[in-house]
């Protein structure tokens, strides 16, 4: 069978020595992790390897010898290297040698107990050690993980990635350490670290403790009995602002918890929440600084009253038209008058209420606008709630009209069935054509609210950190590997370069999406229109998880 040797590209220029790594016998492949240089004492090397094995739980052993001779090939050196094979007994003993500046290496194996005399073929695969160590392999989304798979049956690539990722302790010693063992690997020129990252790690512990304290204070206040008096809980659950604030509080709790993330998914989730919160607050502060300049709040408050007046006047005109003979249709006069006067009174009440509030609107808007510093999503939720509150009267009209229309439709449909049974009875109950026009206005409000909620959901659930990671450090999220065939020479082993194949953006979003609390509209747009047509009520405040009527 073909022997595969995974060689780290950072060791290509290393001095002669012996190779250490992991031998995966089921796949007949050797993953080389580092090169140990001369001089060394075999007993110390074996002790070091057993220590590493205990910590990392990977069977690291001496796999073969590596010779990088700048001069002509020496016979004594090759004999010495073969003798090493007897000291570190390993089947098969791999010998790789590189001559001067030649690109093509020679690779051979020594088998003591070989069944066949045929030379088995060797494939040399170069890999970038740092990238493979930091990368996280994502299996294809449609594979079902079965729990009774043994580690041997796992895919070759996953085994190889795991080997490199778990051998971090091996990469901690660099060539400036005064130990008995001198290793060459990707960090042998000095352990990489960043001052900013270290400083942030030190600063994050007290910051997390402060955050936890503040959050416990906030949740203690929220749980007080005073706020649980009915109808306040009903009100909190209907306003989307409170839902969004609760959602963000939950996120903050996830970030500020002291437990370290268990696995990749949890770590990415924490990072995504953190980046998303940061950008949200930044955008919110930007919006606030734009809004509070040049007295925009004052202008907004000034235009609000005339707009409300205009809408009320239009509605009154519409009702007057309907109470007469709209489009030449003959209506049930008595019912028309009753419904029309009922709705006109509603509008009158609403307009008086708006006029009553008019001196305070600017102040209310000013203070409510301050909450935009909590995040752009909170500002959008407040906007959506304001729209809902201002158009509440339209919702009332819609409910009355829709219920009556629904009754009419049921009546007509039962009569249609009767008609099909060859009994003809015509009932002229033709009121409620006003619900058609009201539906248009209602649809507009529902669409605007739906768009705002969609935007909030999008901002909430988008995994920004994962997308930025995929953009800047694409090797961290890998969907697989790709091989490139390097220059070949006849008689020498096949040389391949293994590179990381990054995950596509769609899969990144799908894997690392943050769960949201609502999905609006509750049903798709087609069922929304269907509900409007048949007169079923649309509940704009129903959230995921609540029982449906």
């Amino acid at each position, binding site marked *: *069978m*073909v022997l*595969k040797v995974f060689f780290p590209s950072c060791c290509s220029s290393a001095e002669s020595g012996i190779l250490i790594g992991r031998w995966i*016998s*089921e*796949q*007949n492949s050797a993953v080389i992790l580092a090169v140990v240089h001369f001089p060394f004492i075999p007993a110390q090397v074996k002790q070091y390897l057993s220590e590493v094995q205990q910590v990392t739980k990977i069977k690291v052993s001496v796999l073969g010898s590596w010779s990088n001779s700048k001069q002509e090939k020496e016979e004594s050196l090759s004999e010495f290297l073969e003798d090493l094979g007897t000291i570190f007994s390993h089947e098969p003993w791999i010998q790789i040698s590189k001559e001067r500046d030649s690109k093509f290496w020679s690779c051979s194996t020594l088998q003591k107990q070989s*069944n066949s005399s045929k030379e088995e*073929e060797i*494939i040399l*695969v170069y890999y970038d050690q740092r990238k493979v160590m930091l990368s996280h392999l994502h299996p294809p989304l449609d594979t079902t993980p*079965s729990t009774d*798979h043994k580690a*041997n*049956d796992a*895919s*070759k*690539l996953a085994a190889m990635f795991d080997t490199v990722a778990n051998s971090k302790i091996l990469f901690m010693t660099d060539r400036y350490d005064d130990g008995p063992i001198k290793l060459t690997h990707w960090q042998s020129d000095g352990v990489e670290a960043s001052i900013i990252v270290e400083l942030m790690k030190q600063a994050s512990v007290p910051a997390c403790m402060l955050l936890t304290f503040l959050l416990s204070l906030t949740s203690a206040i929220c749980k007080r009995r005073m706020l649980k008096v009915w109808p306040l809980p009903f009100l909190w659950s209907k306003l989307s602002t409170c839902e969004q604030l609760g959602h963000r509080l939950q996120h903050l709790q996830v970030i500020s918890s002291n437990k370290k993330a268990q696995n990749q998914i949890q770590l990415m989730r924490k990072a995504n929440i953190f980046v998303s919160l940061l950008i949200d607050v930044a955008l919110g502060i930007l919006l606030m600084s734009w809004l509070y300049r040049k007295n925009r709040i004052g202008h907004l408050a000034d235009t609000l009253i005339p707009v409300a007046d205009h809408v009320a006047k239009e509605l009154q005109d519409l009702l007057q038209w309907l109470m007469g003979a709209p489009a030449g249709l003959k209506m049930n006069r008595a019912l028309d008058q009753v419904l029309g006067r009922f709705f006109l009174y509603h509008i009158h009440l609403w307009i008086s209420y708006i006029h009553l509030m008019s001196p305070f609107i600017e102040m209310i808007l000013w203070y409510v606008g301050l909450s935009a510093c909590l995040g752009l999503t909170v500002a959008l939720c407040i906007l959506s709630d304001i729209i809902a509150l201002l158009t509440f009267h339209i919702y009332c009209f819609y409910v009355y009209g829709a219920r009556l229309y629904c009754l009419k439709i049921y009546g007509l449909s039962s009569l249609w069935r009767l008609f099909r049974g060859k009994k003809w009875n015509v009932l002229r109950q033709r009121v409620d054509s006003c619900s058609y026009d009201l539906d248009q206005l209602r649809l507009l409000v529902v669409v605007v609210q739906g768009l705002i909620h969609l935007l909030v959901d999008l901002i909430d659930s988008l995994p920004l950190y994962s997308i930025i990671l995929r953009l800047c450090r694409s090797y961290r999220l890998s969907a*697989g*590997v*790709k*091989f490139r*065939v390097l220059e*070949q020479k006849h008689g020498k*082993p*096949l040389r*391949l370069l293994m590179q990381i*194949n990054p995950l596509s953006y769609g899969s990144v979003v799908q894997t690392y999406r943050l769960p949201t609390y609502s999905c609006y509209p509750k049903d798709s747009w087609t069922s929304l229109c269907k509900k409007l047509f048949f007169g079923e009520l649309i509940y704009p405040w129903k959230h995921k998880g609540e029982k449906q009527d």
Partner: protein
Amino acid sequence: MEERRYRAVSGAPIALRRRQHSASCWELAVRGPRLQLRSLSAVTSAVWLAAYGLFVLSESSMVLSAAIFITLIGLIVYLHFVKIDQESLLVIGSLGIQVTSSYASGKESTTFIEMSQVKDVVINEAIHMQKVIYYLCILLQDPQDPQGVSEVVPLFQSSQPRLDCLMEVYKSCQEILEQRKTAPQSSGIK
């Protein structure tokens, strides 16, 4: 390394390049026809004539700049996401099969399938409209059922070579897959 000319299902000329890197490694690349200058100029002139007609009717120069914008964006999207220049198959015995599609803008999209997941490489028949066409595909092993097939991955979907070209590719692939069966059973992967 050899290159031979064949025809695609639609009649367009394609070229197959076969290269054997070692006894257990074959690289097979099918190159489709390049983007023709003729068709590109025809489409561009049609779009710009229509835009000029609209400009004469509406007297707004926005139409012209919009047409230029649309042409540029459309060309970039076509070259980067639609037009596949070359599809290649790299079969490495005991490692796996790698399928690469290279787009006209230089983008390459690669998938690597490990040898333990590959059950077989076969030529399938399909009835499409009024024709019967042949296509090469990789059958993936179902991990639970050793006789079952969990997925079929079709190859060379955009260049669509005819049966004679597919036979060459099939022979090279089977040469390497045969080695899998004759190798001593030290892998133990069932």
